[in-house]
């Protein structure tokens, strides 16, 4: 992973158990190790989404973006949409150390779902997602967006 040497130990047990990952690293970890921890936290996270009166457990890495529409907040997956009772600013706080980043007043984007970016007028960016959708990063949020890519 970019020149960092990792020792990986996998312990397979016969008894069924929950998968557990322990990461041993120095307190002043480098950029690659921090990126690894961010990816792991994304996979470890699940959220509750609601649709048609039923609750669903969703994996965070399956969420493309979170958007507020008519004062309600929704998770947008590849082709499904679920509602969440939490407000956008609450998700922004919860997802601070993950690939999710605020790109406008109404949208938080999962940068792991971004396949390419192109510039627009007035200093904005357009992010093309891996499912073909496009999201506009407003000028005010470009800095936070590029920081998620380590730039």
């Amino acid at each position, binding site marked *: 992973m970019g020149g960092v040497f990792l020792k990986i130990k996998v312990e397979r047990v016969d008894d069924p158990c929950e998968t557990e990952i322990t990461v041993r690293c120095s307190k002043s970890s480098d950029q690659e190790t921090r990126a690894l921890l961010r990816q792991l936290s994304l996979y470890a996270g699940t959220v509750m989404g609601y649709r048609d009166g039923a609750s669903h457990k969703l994996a965070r890495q399956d969420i493309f973006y979170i958007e507020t529409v008519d004062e309600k907040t929704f998770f947008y997956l590849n082709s499904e949409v679920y509602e969440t009772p939490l407000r956008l600013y609450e998700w922004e706080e919860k997802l601070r150390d993950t690939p999710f980043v605020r790109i406008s007043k109404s949208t938080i984007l999962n940068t792991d779902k971004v396949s390419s*970016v192109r510039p627009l*007028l007035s*200093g904005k960016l357009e992010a093309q997602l891996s499912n073909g959708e496009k999201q506009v990063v407003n000028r005010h949020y470009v800095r936070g967006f590029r920081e998620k890519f380590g730039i």
Partner: protein
Amino acid sequence: MDKLNLKECVLIDCVSFTAVSVILSLLSFNEDLMSGFDHTMALEVFACTTLISILMYPISRISFRSAVMAEAAKLLDVAVCVLGFGGSFGWFPWEGKYIFEACLIFVAVFIITSAVLFWQASSIANKINRKIREKEHETHH
């Protein structure tokens, strides 16, 4: 169009006033092109750029159908203020040739400002795309 806050309006005012002042100062080396760019005119120009910024504040709160329409609205704001002040303060004779020259100047300033913002966004986009390609390369190997 992104809503502008007051800090950004002040920044736009300062940058556009500086750009216009430099252009007019350079033009005034040639008396045929421009004469009389003195402190009075500098203050008039500042009043004009300030009005442009003030009008930009409510314009930024309109939901335009496309980015091109939003940019056209900004240019119209500039046109109204420059031609309005130009006519009132007698910056240029109210004749076709001089009105055209005045339009050339503010369109040039507008294009330069937009080009700088676009170039900046383009540079960031290229860096991000490079990072995405590196990550995809690492994933597949």
